[in-house]
Structures are given as C-alpha cells and as structure tokens.
C-alpha cells in the first residue's frame, strides 16, 4: 500500500542523498561538512513537528475533536525522533570540527532539554486509557512545552555560544555558497515530505488504536468458555 506522498518522500530523499554527496565540500571542514545535510533538516523537522503539536493542541482544546489530539501526539513522536537525530548528528559533527562530542553550550543543553520535555509529553499521553482525559492533559502540556521552541532557536543569537548562529535564517544574505545551499534546501524539502508521509501513517494508526480502546466489547464466546467449574450443590444435598 504505497501512496503518492510516500513515493514522493522516497524519491526526494534519494535525490537529496545524491545531491548531498556530489556537491563540493566546504573549504575548511572538508567532507565532514556533509553531516549538515542530515543535521540541519533534522533540527528543522523537530521545530516543524513541535509547532504542529502546538497548533493541533490549540485546535483540540477549541473543538474537543479527538482527531486533533491524535495529530498532536503523532507529530510529537516524529519530533522526538528527529530531535534525537539532530543531537546524534551534532555530536558526530562536533567531534571532528570542534574537537568535542559534547559541551555545556546553551544551544546543546536547550536542545537536549527539548528532547526530554517532549519525551515527558509522550509519557503523559500514556497515563490514562481515556482518550478524552488524555486529549485535555496533553493539549495543555503541548501548548506550554512549545514556549521553549523559540528559546532553543534563538539561543545562539541571544547568548555567545560555541554552536554557530544561523547560516540561512538570518538577516541578510545566506552565508553559504550556492551549490551547498542547493543541497541543503533539497535535504530540507525531502525531510519535510518525509514528515508529511510519516504523520499521515501515524495519525491513521492512532485512530485505529483509539477505536480499539473505545469499542464496546460484546459478550462473545472465547476459548475455554465452554468449561464450567464445579457447581455448588443445593443445601444439605
């Protein structure tokens, strides 16, 4: 069961991969710089996914429609995966360029904090069986948690940090040569299509899970129901 969006995701990912491998490398860093084509789109997807969680949470509180709650939860799951990928690729990149896997830099610490906060969000969603209660609780959490997203993004601008400030999302010209910029934008586009494909699958699955939870089970014979235990006899028999 392949859908157009999934075929598109596979196609754009493949194109982005080839583009990222054939464009010339950065003059200072060499081939290590190609990690950028995974690291930057992963971080972008994290922001996008948690932003969608915020919007879906607001929509759920307004409409009380459980479909919005399922979209919020599905998006947060994808966001956590890509936040983890951004952290992992950041470490792999940091070691050869900075010289350290990890350091207590504001951007790094805040990204890790965002990772754990949304893990807590996912844990909170599993604290009840009742989709209505789950929806209300997680919507409030999903809105409050989103407050940290701009702080994570602007941490490199507000405080002097080891992590570089934005290369593209900055006032003025992007500080990157056209072939590298092209490869980066291809990767961002491919990851975004992948996000849409993943979100649709996960939302469907969440709908099926909720349907299973709320279905009223009718009394139907199960294996072993024909076996009858010893019955008490009448008084004084």
């Amino acid at each position, binding site marked *: 069961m392949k859908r157009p969006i999934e075929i598109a995701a596979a196609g754009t990912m493949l194109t982005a991969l080839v583009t990222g491998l054939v464009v*010339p*490398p*950065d*003059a*200072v*860093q*060499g*081939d290590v*710089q190609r990690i*950028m084509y995974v690291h930057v789109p992963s971080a972008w997807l994290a922001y996008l996914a948690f932003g969608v969680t915020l919007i879906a949470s607001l929509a759920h509180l307004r409409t009380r429609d459980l479909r919005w709650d399922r979209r919020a939860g599905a998006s947060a799951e994808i966001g956590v995966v890509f936040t983890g990928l951004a952290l992992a690729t950041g470490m792999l990149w940091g070691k*050869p*360029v*900075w*010289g*350290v896997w990890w*350091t*207590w*830099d*504001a951007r790094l610490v805040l990204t890790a904090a965002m990772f754990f906060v949304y893990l807590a969000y996912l844990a909170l969603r599993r604290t009840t069986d009742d989709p209505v209660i789950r929806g209300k609780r997680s919507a409030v959490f999903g809105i409050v948690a989103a407050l940290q997203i701009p702080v994570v993004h602007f941490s490199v601008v507000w*405080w*002097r*940090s*080891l992590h*570089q*400030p*934005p*290369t593209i999302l*900055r006032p003025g010209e992007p*500080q*990157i*040569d056209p*072939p*590298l910029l092209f490869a980066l934008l291809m990767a961002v586009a491919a990851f975004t299509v992948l996000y849409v494909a993943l979100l649709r699958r996960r939302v469907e699955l969440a709908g099926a899970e909720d349907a299973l939870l709320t279905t009223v089970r009718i009394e139907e014979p199960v294996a072993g129901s024909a076996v009858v235990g010893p019955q008490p006899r009448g008084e004084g028999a």
Partner: protein
Amino acid sequence: MRRYRWFVVAALGLVAVLTGFLVANIGQDLVYYQTPSDVLADAGRVGAGRFRLGGQVVPGSIVDDGASVTFDVTDGQATVNVAHQGAPQQLFREGIGVVVEGTWDGVIFHSDSMIIKHDEQYRTEDGGVYTPDSRYPSP
C-alpha cells in the same frame, strides 16, 4: 480534582523556586566564553580561576614548538596572548575561531583545552573545484 489541589500548588511552588535558582545562578554561564575585551576590562579575572576565552586566531601569531603553541586571540578590539599546552585541534589555523579554557595571569592566558568555533560560513574552494590537498591547509 480536589484531592490533587494541594499537590498541584506544592508542585508549582517547587518549580517556581527551582526556576528562580536557575535564573539567579545561570547568569554568566549562559555565555559560553569571554571575549578578549571582557578579559582585559575585568581585572578581577587575573589569577581568579579557570574560564573560557574565545576569539579569532590572529594571522601570523602562531608559534608551535611541539609541546605547546602560542598565538594571539582577538575579538577585533582587544587581543590576548595565549599559551596552549598540548596539541592544537585539527582545524586550528590562522583566522579561525577558537575557544580556549584555562587561567589568566594578566599577561598570558594559560590554556590546556582547546575547542574550535566554526562560524556560520560555508564556502567551496574557488570556482567550486575541490582538490584533496586543499582540504586541510597547514596552520
């Protein structure tokens, strides 16, 4: 919900206190490094323990004697002389951003830990031509 009211109040109070501690104590630590201007302006830093110094390596200032490297770090306004013990990082070269950690005696910054700070610029070789030799120019 009534049962949980005091629990919620207590939890919010705890979070508020912890946030207060965090904001009160994090102040300077949100800044990853000090600039040469900060260091020269603050006499209290002389001999006052370890901190991080960041800036650009001044071209022509690198002297490598094998066991240690000395160079100047600048932020455009002020310059501090650094003596670094141990091998420099792979990308260490003239003009690159660097964050060193160590102590300041008022004349020389004695560093034993170096991190390269790569800026936000990504450039190909001239004309987009890439030759393996051009990747790691020697410092």
